[in-house]
């Protein structure tokens, strides 16, 4: 703890019940000026819910005590908290896809104006903000054309641009690569120096230890412990989060990779002129890493048939194939876990069951093409158990799950499809540390059982822990290949940045 600084916001006795299910129980949170408070907990522990209550986007059950900047309130709403200087980076980013970067950045500040919208003013303000933060986006681009990582940076920029007194970041780094993460750390440091109160939610504990001052652990909607960072070790936190101590042994699948499953030849991705070539073999986990916007996702989309390839060839099991749509890819045994789970993954309003089995329905129908409920239930039950999806209620609306649990449902979808090659794009984004280990273990299990796995990840520790081979992308090309044995986080980062060819 640095200073016994002033308390900006204090919420006490906060409970929240969604149609009978209590997700927060008598929780409290205190935010102090010039201090970074880490909020950690397993998926579904209630972190995002607490934040939504803090911003007024959700209302707590009666009995809560809400104090903002010295004033106690009965109820708050987003407009007022925003006005008081509470700025939130929501887990779902809450950007306006149809507006430009400049319009998104200016959106909140404009509310204080006189109702007149001057595009040029917004535009120059946006340019200035982005420059200050060291980001370079086209301010006139509609946000829907940005990659997911870029959108995350934009959401951060928007929160910072409002000159807020309290900034809440709900998993801001889930899709950021090392370089962007550094930018964020720098921003956090500057904000702390400016006496802003910060809440930082993350599943990446090294990050928590690096930039936070205090930590609060939520478990099953209750605050289990809170205290200064120096008083904890990573293992303490994990124990507090899951209620017991766990062991983590990253066991990379070692040994000989089998024959080639996927071969990529000179595939042109995006506007580049140089093709991408690589292959993935049985029993092998290949990782692709790179900076935000380096084209990894686009490469995956091209392989998966989502975006047409401009040129190049694909081989599956040594045979050349044409993949014109994801359905073709699926028919060839290729699965893809997308990075944007809200837009590309989850079917809102539909059950966990429906969400999990959609890619495996072929195996669940009888002779009359009727979906056999018994088979479907069995499949869902199996993956709910294996992935520890909570709530373990197959009929629950998937969009009401916490971010991490949604991710697990999507993973279940693709594991249930039993692909021969599974491409996973930021597979552990938003997933808690326990589940992350579980996912790593499952991916390794897949590889061990003969599936080829292509992991796209911005998290270098994940890449190093999982992969047998690592490809580094930049500007739509592969600029380097290495193995975990012969590289470190630093050496990979250098490749990402400079992209020298071997």
């Amino acid at each position, binding site marked *: 703890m640095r200073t016994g600084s002033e308390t900006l916001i204090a919420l006490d006795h906060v409970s929240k019940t969604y149609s009978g299910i209590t997700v927060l129980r008598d929780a409290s949170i205190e935010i102090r000026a010039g201090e970074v408070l880490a909020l950690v907990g397993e998926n579904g522990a209630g972190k995002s819910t607490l934040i939504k209550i803090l911003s007024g986007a959700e209302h707590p059950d009666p009995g809560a005590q809400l104090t903002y900047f010295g004033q106690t309130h009965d109820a708050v709403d987003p407009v007022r908290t925003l006005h008081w200087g509470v700025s939130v980076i929501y887990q779902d980013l809450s950007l306006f896809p149809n507006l430009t970067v400049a319009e998104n950045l200016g959106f909140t500040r404009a509310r204080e104006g006189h109702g007149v919208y001057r595009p040029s003013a917004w535009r120059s303000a946006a340019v200035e903000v982005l420059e200050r933060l060291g980001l370079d986006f086209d301010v006139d681009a509609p946000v*829907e054309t940005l990659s997911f990582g870029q959108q995350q940076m934009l959401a951060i920029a928007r929160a910072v641009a409002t000159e807020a007194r309290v900034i809440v970041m709900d998993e801001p780094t889930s899709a950021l690569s090392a370089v962007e993460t550094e930018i964020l750390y720098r921003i956090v440091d500057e904000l702390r120096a400016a006496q802003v109160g910060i809440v930082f939610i993350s599943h990446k504990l090294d990050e928590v230890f690096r930039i936070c001052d205090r930590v609060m652990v939520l478990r099953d909607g209750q605050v289990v412990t809170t205290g200064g960072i120096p008083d904890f070790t990573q293992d303490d936190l994990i124990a507090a989060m899951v209620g017991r101590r766990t062991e983590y042994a990253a066991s990379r699948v070692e040994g000989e990779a089998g024959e080639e499953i996927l071969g990529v030849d000179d595939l042109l991705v995006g506007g580049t002129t140089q093709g991408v070539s690589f292959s993935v073999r049985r029993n092998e986990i290949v990782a692709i890493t790179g900076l935000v916007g380096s084209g990894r996702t686009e490469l995956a989309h091209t392989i998966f048939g989502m975006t047409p390839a401009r040129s190049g060839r694909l081989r599956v099991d040594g045979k050349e194939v044409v993949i014109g749509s*994801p359905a073709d*890819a699926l028919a060839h045994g290729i699965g893809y876990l*997308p990075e944007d789970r809200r*837009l590309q*993954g*989850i079917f*809102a309003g539909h059950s966990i069951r*429906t969400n999990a089995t959609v890619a495996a329905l072929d195996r669940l129908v009888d002779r009359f*093409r009727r979906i056999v409920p018994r088979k479907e239930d069995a499949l869902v039950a199996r993956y709910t158990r294996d992935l520890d999806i909570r709530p373990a209620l197959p009929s629950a609306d998937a969009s009401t799950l916490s971010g991490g649990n949604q991710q697990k449902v999507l993973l279940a979808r693709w594991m249930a499809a039993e692909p021969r090659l599974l491409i996973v794009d930021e597979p552990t984004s938003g997933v808690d540390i326990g589940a992350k280990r579980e996912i790593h273990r499952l991916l390794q299990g897949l590889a061990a059982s003969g599936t080829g796995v292509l992991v796209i990840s911005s998290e270098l520790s994940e890449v190093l822990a999982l992969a047998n081979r690592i490809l580094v992308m930049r500007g739509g090309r592969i600029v380097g290949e290495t193995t975990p044995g012969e590289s470190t986080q630093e050496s990979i980062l250098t490749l990402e940045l400079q992209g020298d060819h071997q």
Partner: protein
Amino acid sequence: MKRLFSRYPTEWVLVGLFALLFIVVSALSPSFLTAGNLFQLARQMVELAIITCGMSVVIITGGIDLSIGAQVGLVAVTMAVLVAHGWPLPAAMLAGLLVAVAAGLINGALVGVLGVPSLVATLGTSLAYGGAATVMSDGRAVSSFPTSYFVFGQSFVGPVPAQVFLMIAIVIITAYLLTSTRWGRHVYLIGANPVAARFAGIRTARTLMATYVFAALLAYVVAVVLSSRTATARVDLGDAYVLSAISAVVFGGISIAGGRGNVVGAILGVAVFTVIQNGLGLANVSVFIQTVVIGSILIIVLTGREIAKRVRTSRRKTAPVFGAITTSKERQA
């Protein structure tokens, strides 16, 4: 029981409303609650109910098919004109079937393959199909059908009009397809999130084609029943059903944004409309008052349901998931 209720709230509201209406209307008109009239009522539902099945499926995918009415006219006129040209009835009916399939395929291709917004696409094809029928018939009613044809719309099984059984079968088949088959599942998921549907390996284009063809096949059935019942084929034979079907669909709890609802609710909606029209008609209430009643019931019932829901969950001020759905649709490339 309680579970059944909470799972199908809209349907139960409609059942209740239906019962209530039944009582009110019986009180208003003595001839309402007679066996003859009840069969009549069932018969009056048939065409709208069948069209509504097709419309439901299309709307669940997040689309709409404004051309169903024109398809009915086109199919009927095609058959009648061919019969008038001396074709044997079975051949003419087969040709009508092919025309229906072609019309469905064209809609499906426009919406599913090319990605044209269904509303404009089917508005355009509606003009074109109706126009084609007008060209074939010079806009005239064609009554060339042989009497053997009238079995489809004028025959009875005991006291029950035969087409009522057809309607029941079609409703059951539609409900079955939607709830229990892979195709039905895909229909819902495309409606819920078309982008995610593609990412999940669903052949969205093919599924949408099948959807519009399904709607067209039901239009074909209606064309046969209706032209047989009235012994005539006309361009505008099905026009009146389009808007009514859409009303019934939304009334029955199917989201116009797609992805939610079920066909049984929509058919209950049809039943409610038919009872109002039949009952108030018998009670000699003017059509325009009937219109007002239907419009009011539409709003009042759903308002009541919405308020009840809000009281139950007592959730304040949030706009749940709607935004998410909206944005996902946007990125449909």
